[in-house]
């Protein structure tokens, strides 16, 4: 598959932001393949904060950087008991090879069948490119979206927004 990170799209960045789910809403549940043999559901990790990293594609230079940064930030995420999940439309086989090649120590989920369904549920799918946009979500312990950010596809957003959002979560996980 040939998805590249900088294919154009009919949606402008501004209108794309309107589609992305807002903070305060319930995070849609998802069940996706984490490996060719195993699936992972969001409800399995309820009670922990969850960081979702939607990205366009394995194997492109910018994506490698973004996921490597998050992988390097894992110790900081673990201080919050946060679970880190990467999501793209690539197959579980691609994810497996990619994670191994880059030494990533967190699950990459395959939004492959049906294609982009979870990305669409979160409002982060780019139908013109056939890939997810570059979107970050922090989900709190009650499975509500606490923070989210959509980035231009060509820009790696880094982990600082996620870390600040995790710092801001109430310690007891209460909804407020």
């Amino acid at each position, binding site marked *: 598959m040939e998805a590249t990170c900088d294919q154009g799209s009919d949606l402008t960045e501004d209108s794309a932001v309107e589609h992305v789910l807002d903070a305060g809403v319930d995070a849609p549940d998802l069940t996706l393949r984490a490996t060719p043999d195993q699936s992972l559901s969001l409800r399995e990790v309820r009670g922990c904060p969850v960081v979702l990293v939607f990205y366009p594609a394995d194997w492109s230079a*910018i994506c*490698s*950087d*973004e996921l*490597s*940064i998050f*992988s*390097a*930030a894992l*110790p*900081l995420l673990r201080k919050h008991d946060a679970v880190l999940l990467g999501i793209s439309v690539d197959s579980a086989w691609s994810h497996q090879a990619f994670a191994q090649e*880059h*030494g*990533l*120590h967190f699950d990459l989920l395959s939004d492959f069948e049906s294609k982009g369904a979870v990305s669409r549920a979160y409002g982060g799918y780019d139908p013109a490119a056939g890939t997810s946009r570059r979107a970050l979500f922090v989900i709190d312990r009650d499975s509500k979206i606490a923070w989210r950010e959509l980035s231009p596809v060509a*820009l*790696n*957003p*880094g*982990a*600082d*927004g996620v*870390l600040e959002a995790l710092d801001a979560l109430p310690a007891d996980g209460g909804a407020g």
Partner: protein
Amino acid sequence: MSLLEPPVGDGDRVLGPAAAPITLVEYGDFQCPYCREAEPVLEELLAEYGDGIRFVFRNFPLEDAHPQALPAAEPAELASRYDRFWEAHDLLFEYQDELSPELYARICESLGLPLREFDAAVRNGFDRDRIEADLESGPRSGVNGTPTFFVNGARVDGGIRAVPQALAFAAE
């Protein structure tokens, strides 16, 4: 906007006058080829800005992708105890193709660092406080790859190619 956190302080590796109006920070990985490519450009920029700029290097070894990145950072930290950080830094990038324990020992030797101290550090583990502080500050600052540059505390997007313009803007 992603901002450097924490700001440049006492523990940092700084090249240039403390009072320089422009501060350029690089988060780098000694095994990263893009960081190596940036070196000659940085050298030119530092020469161009002279006393008007101070340059800071912070470690961001991408350990998973670059297995020698953290081991390479350690002799540089040892060298910094003897005020020879920048020489070690330059040698590590110059000999990036040969990163290995043998190279680190050669570098320490050529810089006149006490070999006994190097051997002890290899046995007991190097002083990693600075490296770990940098590794924590990196994600918090919004490091988004290696190298990531900050001009006067603000992240520069676009790598080394975007740095000359960012510096020119800061100098206005």
